[in-house]
């Protein structure tokens, strides 16, 4: 059944919830499948399937509601297949595992297509393959499959174990304090492994009984007694014997006879908060307003300093200092809510890499570093696709096949590493392979065939990257299936730039290639340098600044239509901001240059005066009529006057394009389908 007109609009209000829940369940499915594959590889016990089944079941139900027939069909087939596999012992054959991976991938594509308003992919063949995997389980089987664990399974047969019996008596009062059965269960999971959880009617009310196995020495928190919890030591288990009898629930078993299945699920739900991003943005805006208020207070203080009210002044100054500290803490606290570990994305990359590796027939080891590095949820979501491109590229083009590697004196197995590190307000993600490196000659040859103007001398890594990022550029005659190389790099670069990030590359012939993505940790509040440009106040994000130099205006010379100044061992191209934005140009003997860009390609932004460092709140300029290139947004500095925030990445890009255009004009290049002016 698919929704008709009226229903479609009814479900429209839930569509974002649907996608967000799909993301969660797909992540669970990927995690369990990878664990399943890992256990098959190293012979460890297969992970329990109940979590996977539940995710697939929920996906099926939700997809049916919103009319995503493609996702409904695939999740249905997957659920049946996994149930069959579970009944058959929980160890799928390699071919079956492949089909499950393909199924989850297909499911993801269905959801993605629905999100883009496109027709779903053709999944008939996929569904048929999945349906052919295992005998179908009957609904009755489905219910009997228990996910209760034994003590031995739960604790890995190593150490001695104690089993606690907990009793929780819920009440409206406790519930009002947020102490409910789910919260209690989360607490108990922190103590050990939940073996059993059952309700029981007692004196007209309900009592929940929990059995928890914990390592010897682990004690429940005495303060829990105030939260309706009582407990006793149920027993002690020494190192379990070989037959590992499950711990039987004790004699006064409650009314519900069948097994209420409960098990530790790895990630504790209690540590995960699902918050609507819109609400978080509201809080961030509120913080922004507070920042503005404090700026006003500071201005008032400055004004009051002239009057002789020193005592009052002291108090105000103290308040101001305290507010500054509190605001910073609040800002950091709220920002932390938005942050998620980058490891979540890495796991999804592992999943994608797995397919690419299998298809390529190569041996590739994936290494992750810094998974706990945190990054804004919005930033991380938008980085997934570009990172997928880089990973697939590295597998299908960077890393050589085993024979070729051995011939080059390398280990047959290649290494693809993903590293995330945070420094200050930026996060850096490096995707590095130890493959063949980029074939520069081939890139140059293809670039010339495409009509791109290139210098005669050897290309720097940066120039090479610029060529690779030309829209539609490819070193392959036909984009191959896995990476679609050539359609990828421009997408990668524009996604990174859209997030105010920077993409860099380093490649060494025969040794490998590393792509570095630098991104802001979050996007809303920045430390910025305020400057005066032609009488207008502008803000420059501090992380973008490399250096500030003061120069004599007379030392700025024009060279090939570019204003430049001597800088270190070379020259520094200059962008005259007042001229760029059409502000009045104040004649002065000295000016300041804000050096931005990379070490290899720096650029100086000419400003008249430095005002000082300030914490600014970024308001994006959404109105297309007001938006102008080189401006990232606007900020209210408390004076009620709006100052523009410079987008240094865009300024660099504009300067680079102007240079390219001038160079192209000079060289009278061959007819070009890919002129730099066509870039966006």
């Amino acid at each position: 059944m698919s929704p008709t007109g009226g229903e479609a609009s009814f479900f429209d209000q839930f569509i974002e919830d649907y996608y967000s829940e799909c993301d969660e369940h797909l992540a669970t499915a990927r995690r369990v499948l990878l664990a399943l594959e890992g256990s098959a590889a190293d012979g460890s016990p297969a992970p329990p399937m109940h979590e996977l089944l539940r995710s697939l079941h929920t996906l099926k139900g939700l997809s049916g509601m919103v009319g995503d027939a493609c996702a409904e069909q695939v999740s249905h087939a997957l659920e049946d297949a996994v149930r069959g596999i579970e009944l058959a012992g929980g160890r799928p054959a390699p071919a079956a595992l492949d089909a499950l991976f393909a199924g989850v991938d297909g499911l993801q594509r269905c959801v993605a297509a629905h999100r883009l308003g496109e027709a779903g992919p053709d999944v008939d063949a996929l569904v048929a393959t999945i349906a052919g995997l295992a005998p179908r389980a009957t609904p009755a089987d489905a219910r009997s499959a228990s996910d209760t664990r034994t003590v031995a399974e739960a604790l890995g047969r190593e150490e001695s174990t104690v089993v606690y019996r907990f009793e929780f008596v819920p009440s409206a009062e406790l519930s009002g304090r947020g102490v409910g059965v789910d919260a209690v269960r989360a607490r108990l999971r922190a103590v050990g492994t939940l073996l059993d959880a059952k309700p029981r009617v007692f004196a007209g009310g309900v009592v929940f009984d929990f059995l928890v196995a914990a390592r010897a020495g682990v004690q429940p928190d005495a303060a829990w007694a105030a939260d309706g919890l009582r407990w006793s030591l149920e027993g002690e288990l020494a190192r379990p014997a070989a037959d590992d009898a499950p711990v039987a629930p004790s004699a006064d078993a409650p009314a519900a006879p069948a097994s209420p299945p409960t098990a530790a699920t790895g990630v504790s739900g209690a540590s995960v908060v699902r918050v609507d991003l819109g609400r978080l943005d509201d809080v961030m805006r509120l913080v922004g307003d507070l920042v503005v208020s404090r700026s006003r207070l500071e201005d008032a203080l400055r004004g009051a300093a002239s009057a002789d009210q020193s005592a009052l002044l002291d108090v105000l100054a103290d308040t101001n200092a305290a507010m500054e500290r509190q605001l910073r803490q609040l800002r950091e606290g709220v920002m932390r809510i938005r942050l998620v570990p980058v490891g979540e994305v890495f796991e999804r990359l592992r999943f994608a890499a797995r397919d690419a590796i299998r298809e390529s027939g190569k041996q590739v080891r994936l290494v992750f570093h810094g998974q706990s590095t945190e990054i804004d949820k919005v930033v991380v979501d938008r980085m997934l696709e570009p990172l997928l491109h880089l990973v697939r590229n590295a597998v299908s083009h960077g890393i050589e096949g085993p024979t070729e590697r051995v011939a080059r004196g390398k280990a047959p197995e290649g290494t693809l590493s993903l590293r995330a590190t945070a420094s200050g307000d930026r996060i850096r993600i490096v995707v590095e392979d130890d493959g063949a490196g980029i074939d520069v000659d081939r890139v140059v040859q293809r670039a010339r065939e495409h009509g791109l103007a290139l210098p005669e001398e050897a290309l720097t890594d940066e120039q090479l990257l610029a060529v690779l990022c030309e829209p539609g550029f490819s070193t392959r005659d036909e984009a191959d299936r896995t990476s679609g190389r050539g359609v990828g790099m421009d997408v990668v670069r524009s996604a990174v730039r859209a997030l105010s990030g920077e993409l860099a590359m380093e490649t060494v012939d025969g040794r490998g290639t590393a792509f570095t993505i630098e991104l802001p940790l979050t996007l809303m509040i920045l430390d910025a340098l305020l400057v005066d440009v032609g009488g207008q106040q502008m803000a420059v994000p501090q992380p973008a600044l490399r250096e500030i130099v003061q120069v004599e205006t007379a030392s700025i010379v024009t060279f090939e239509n570019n204003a430049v100044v001597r800088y270190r061992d070379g020259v520094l191209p200059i962008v005259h901001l007042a001229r760029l934005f059409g502000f009045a140009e104040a004649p002065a003997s000295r000016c300041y240059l804000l050096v931005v860009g990379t070490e290899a390609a720096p650029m100086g932004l000419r400003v008249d005066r430095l005002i000082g460092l300030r914490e600014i709140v970024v308001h994006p300029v959404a109105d297309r009529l007001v938006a102008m290139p080189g401006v990232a947004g606007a900020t209210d500095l408390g004076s009620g006057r709006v100052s523009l925030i410079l987008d240094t990445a865009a300024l660099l890009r504009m300067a680079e394009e102007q240079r390219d255009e001038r160079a192209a004009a000079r060289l009278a290049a061959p007819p070009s389908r890919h002129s730099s002016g066509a870039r966006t």
Partner: protein
Amino acid sequence: MRTILVVDDSPTMRRMIMAALRELGDVAFDQAGSGLEAIERLAVSPVDLVVLDLNMPDVHGLEVLRFVRSHERFRSLPVVVLTTRSDDQSRRAALDEGATRYLTKPFQPAALAPEIRSLLDVA
């Protein structure tokens, strides 16, 4: 004012159910995301009707139903099972355990409210 307890492990599904039932007018909602939580909600606050999913973490919907029906206090409480399981066997099992109605997902939002209204009027 009547209170409806909506039990489903998917928060999105709960929101969909509540939105479809909002047209009943004078109703309040309570929610539970698991079988245990459903039993807790029943124990700590008055509920006039339960909309119950079957496949849930920890305690299965049928076990919630069995628990509810085995206690005097809840014996006449209307429990509407709302599940993706459309097979006869599941339907029979739920009705045997004392489900008042057995409805399947995907549901028509416009059709759900009248079903529930008829039960609330009787209760």
